[in-house]
């Protein structure tokens, strides 16, 4: 079997189970909160309008943003209350998805109550039913088809939106989709999408079975449907086997190929040392550091310049070694985070050109570029032009280009290769620099900060010698050309490798 497919299928059971778990829990909470809310609001005309407006409003927030919002909110809540509230993973995903499930459940709940014949309601009252009896004996059974239709909609939405839970560190089918998208591994994306679709269709089918069972008063349909729901709950929440007595280490990764490869390399090392590992791939750039400081992940790789500018909010630009030194001290003092050490390569922003174009114009440094820039076009990734690094370069060399264009990284490289732009904001460890025969331009005025890849450990691991010992062999062990090669193996279109394969190749040297 194709190794990428085999790897995706191998990851599937664990991810599917996690996906099912967070989805079922969110739907359950949506039902448990949404139905009483609908019942409560139904008799209060003004509240009803406001409530439907509010749940509708939640729905207009993109699911990705809703998920991302709960991470800082829980973090602040945990700090303010002093409680150990996990800000990453299951909890924020659960809260956001539950909120997301509310709209169809509340709306259909209200519609179900509104759709009941007033004569039936009057009869129920007239024969002496209490409010509770009226609800349980008359309103719920009569409203069941509409209520269930709402739950079905909520189930399909929630299972779909749960793929985005990956971004806050909750494993889901999104792990396959996001890592596949990033490394252009379409098989992986397909497996993730199909997995989520199968779950959504299965949930819809089971609920349809219950619905038709209620409509036809068919006991076996209802029982089979409820039995399948119970089975799904068992699969999602009952541990598969007794968890071994090993410690579990959570490895974080941001959302690009190099990070996936390095996380796989870390995973290899830790497994060899006898640790059980979990991955949190596809974390947002600032989320990753906060997650480490909060102890939600144990280890990940970040870059010195990013930490310097974004985490410490520094605008000066000390030499690489001094920056590393200061980072070690400042991060340890402020957050208890340990810098285990530099991996040995840099992934910096560097302006790059095609070799022959650079030779033709006689450009090998940013000083020389500045003279020709007014006749040249710059292609940048989506954030470069808003970053402090760009402003620093612009100021230091007085760069003025004829035109700026923004691309997603893949297309940025294609644009420079086909001549759509002349200069791009490349990443210095990117495998495509060598592959496309690009040259990176020298920075004699040291305007661009250094971006040494640093291995970082969470506060609780800072003095854990066994853990640090397992990872120290990685320090200084990865040269930039090896990293470029590994990145290229994952990013290229032909003879494509998975990040895990690239990581094994990277580690094969020692």
């Amino acid at each position: 079997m194709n190794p990428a497919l085999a790897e995706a299928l191998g990851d599937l059971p664990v991810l599917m189970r996690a996906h099912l778990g967070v989805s079922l829990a969110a739907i359950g909470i949506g039902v448990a909160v949404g139905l009483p809310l609908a019942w409560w609001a139904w008799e209060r005309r003004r509240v009803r309008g406001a409530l439907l407006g509010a749940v509708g409003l939640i729905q207009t927030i993109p699911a990705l943003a809703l998920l991302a919002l709960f991470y800082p909110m829980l973090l602040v809540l945990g700090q303010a209350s002093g409680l150990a509230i996990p800000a990453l993973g299951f909890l924020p995903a659960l809260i956001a998805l539950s909120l997301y499930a509310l709209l169809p459940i509340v709306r259909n709940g209200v519609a179900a109550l509104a759709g009941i014949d007033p004569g039936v309601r009057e009869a129920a009252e007239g024969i002496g039913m209490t409010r509770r009896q009226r609800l349980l004996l008359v309103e719920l059974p009569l409203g069941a088809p509409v209520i269930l239709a709402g739950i079905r909609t909520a189930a399909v939405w929630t299972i779909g939106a749960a793929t985005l839970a990956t971004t806050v560190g909750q494993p889901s089918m999104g792990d396959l989709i996001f890592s596949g998208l990033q490394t252009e591994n379409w098989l992986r994306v397909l497996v993730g999408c199909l997995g989520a679709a199968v779950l959504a269709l299965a949930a819809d089918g089971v609920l349809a079975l219950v619905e038709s069972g209620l409509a036809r008063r068919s006991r076996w349909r209802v029982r089979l449907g409820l039995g399948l729901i119970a089975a799904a709950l068992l699969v999602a929440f009952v541990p598969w086997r007794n968890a071994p007595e090993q410690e579990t280490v959570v490895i974080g990764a941001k959302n690009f190929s190099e990070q996936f490869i390095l996380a796989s390399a870390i995973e290899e090392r830790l497994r060899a040392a006898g640790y059980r590992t979990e991955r949190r791939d596809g974390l947002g750039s600032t989320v990753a550091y906060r997650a480490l400081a909060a102890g939600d992940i144990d280890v990940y790789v970040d870059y010195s310049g990013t930490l310097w500018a974004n985490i410490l909010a520094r605008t000066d630009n000390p030499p690489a070694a001094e920056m590393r030194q200061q980072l070690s001290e400042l991060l340890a003092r402020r957050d208890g985070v340990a810098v285990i050490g530099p991996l040995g390569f840099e992934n910096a922003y560097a302006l790059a050109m095609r070799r022959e174009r650079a030779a033709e114009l006689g450009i090998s440094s940013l000083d020389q570029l500045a003279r020709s820039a007014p006749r040249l076009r710059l292609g940048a990734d989506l954030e470069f032009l808003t970053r402090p690094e760009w402003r620093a370069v612009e100021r230091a060399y007085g760069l003025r280009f004829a035109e700026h264009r923004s691309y997603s990284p893949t297309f940025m490289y294609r644009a420079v290769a086909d001549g759509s732009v002349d200069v791009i904001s490349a990443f210095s460890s990117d495998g495509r620099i060598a592959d496309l025969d690009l040259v990176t331009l020298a920075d004699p005025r040291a305007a661009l900060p250094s971006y040494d890849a640093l291995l970082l450990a969470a506060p609780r691991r800072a003095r854990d010698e066994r853990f640090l010992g397992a990872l120290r062999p990685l320090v200084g062990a990865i040269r930039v050309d090896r990293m470029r090669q590994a990145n290229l193996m994952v990013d290229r279109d032909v003879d494509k490798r998975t990040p895990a394969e690239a990581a094994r190749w990277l580690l094969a040297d020692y």
Partner: protein
Amino acid sequence: MIELADVTKRHGAGTALDGVSLTAAAGEFVALVGPSGSGKTTLLKSINRLAAPDEGIVRVDGRDVRDMPVTELRRGIGYVIQGIGLFPHMTVAENIWIVPRLAGTPATEREGRVAELLDLVALPREFAGRMPSSLSGGQAQRVGVARALAAGPRIMLMDEPFGALDPVTRDELGRSYRALHDSLALTSIMVTHDMAEALLIADRIVVLIDGRVRADLPPAELLSSQDPEVRALVDVPRRQAERLHALAEGR
């Protein structure tokens, strides 16, 4: 048995009941008649507290209904409404058994009691397992009556119970209900807009106009009332009866 003393109920700016006093003795069959909006239904609902009067007192068995637990009050009174109000998701037997079930009567008694009640309203016992949607209007209304009788109430409140039925079924059901009223020694209050129906089955007829009692008389006396508005109501069936009589006589 049932007593309303000076009951007033206002609806926004208008008045649904305006100082109504009325009594129904045990075993009496009282019909409430009047044009639409005269307050008939509000009066009926004030007895089982589906409507709360603004002034005045309603007593059942000498107790102010406001002092009785509302569910207990309602479960002790049979209630039949227009448009039947059967629960569409329950079988005939489940509908009939609902009040005893609410009262916590053991389910073991259900089958026998349901059969008995079906006999009482002259429906075949096989109907027990059918759904309301499969019944004709007359059959459904008989089930409605059986449901109201299930807990053995001594009082029956009926709001246009036969209003939606065809004339033949309506007449038949009216007469068979009157027979039940007598054999079970019920006290019945029935709202109807059909004066002929009221005249033929009630012991007393209360005419409500604009929320006030305009007449409160036995049928024979109502027919000879000199009140022009009451006459206008009774003249319709009387003239129909006279014309039918003349037709039959061949004149």
